């Protein structure tokens, strides 16, 4: 079997965090091997090997052949997903076994949300980037047109940066933005980042207009509806990060006509 010769430890770049992924010794089951195949297929370009050991490890995931626990997570569409991994965030160790691709994605999202608690946020949004590395982030309720907006701009030469979520991370006092390091809407991770961004709260309208938002508390309230946190709770750090993000960036209200007429022109007016 090909898997006999595979390395046991990988280091994965998860939005600038160093993630150690270790396959534990044990009986190599078909499902265990599937975890490896999924990681290899969708994340191989983000793996690097043991010569980077000196770099600090931010989180460890150990893939083990069996586990006693499952977690149920309720999603927005009222469906339940049972995740088969154990988490001990205090020890910065997560255990994962016989996982599906969806389970790996959930796990990465949870790990990221944990790691970002100190200095970042996981935002629910779509985004595009232009040729000058300027990022345009679109926030809004489900069904408000986030994906449609990103798709309309992609047709006008912008590159899609993210479809459903984005990592905002404060590094040395500056905010950086990473495309999601996991699969989104069947798209593999892109592994791109940006440091210059504008934020737009979008809503459908009969005309495309853009207006700068000046009321900081209302921006904070709106942002709070667009963040993804573990167990749905907001920590003091998360609240601090939101206030910092809001006070260091520009936020706009963007009303969009269905056909997106004038959209690219309007966002460049900001």
């Amino acid at each position, binding site marked *: 079997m090909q898997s006999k010769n595979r390395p046991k430890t990988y280091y994965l770049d998860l939005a600038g965090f160093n993630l150690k992924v270790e396959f534990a010794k044990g009986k190599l089951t078909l499902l265990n091997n599937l975890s490896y195949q999924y990681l290899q297929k969708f994340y191989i370009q983000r793996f690097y090997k043991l010569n980077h050991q000196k770099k600090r490890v931010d989180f460890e995931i150990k893939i083990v052949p069996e586990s006693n626990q499952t977690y149920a997570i309720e999603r927005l569409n009222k469906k339940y997903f049972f995740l088969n991994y154990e988490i001990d965030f205090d020890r910065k160790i997560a255990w994962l076994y016989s996982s599906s691709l969806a389970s790996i994605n959930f796990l990465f999202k949870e790990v990221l949300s944990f790691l970002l608690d100190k200095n970042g946020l996981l935002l629910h949004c779509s985004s595009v980037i232009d040729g000058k590395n300027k990022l345009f982030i679109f926030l809004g309720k489900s069904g408000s047109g986030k994906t449609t907006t990103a798709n309309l701009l992609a047709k006008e030469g912008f590159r899609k940066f993210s479809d459903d979520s984005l990592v905002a991370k404060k590094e040395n006092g500056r905010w950086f933005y990473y495309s999601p390091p996991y699969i989104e809407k069947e798209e593999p991770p892109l592994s791109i980042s940006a440091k210059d961004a504008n934020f737009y709260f979008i809503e459908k309208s009969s005309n495309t207009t853009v207006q700068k938002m000046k009321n900081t508390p209302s921006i904070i309230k709106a942002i709070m509806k667009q963040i993804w946190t573990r167990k749905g709770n907001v920590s003091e750090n998360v609240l601090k990060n939101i*206030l910092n993000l809001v006070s260091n960036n520009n936020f706009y209200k963007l009303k969009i006509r269905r056909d997106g007429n004038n959209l690219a022109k309007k966002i460049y007016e900001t």
Partner: protein
Amino acid sequence: MKLKKQLLLQKMGKVFVAYDNENSTLYEFNEVGFFILEKIKQGLSKEQVIKIITEEFGVKKEKARSDCTNFIKKIKKLGLVN
């Protein structure tokens, strides 16, 4: 007088907010209101808070007492203290 356990306090520049994790509600305060909330969180009594406000903000004790009493009434009504 105790601040609600699920209430988070945070400030940034001139923005002073409290977030209630129980009902996902964000409250905005001015500097003095936020100062009072912080002191309640630290476990100070109403009389101790009034004394500090008088010293820190240079207001007369009676004015501090009246403003502080009104503010506490409001935050009690909102369920932020018990």
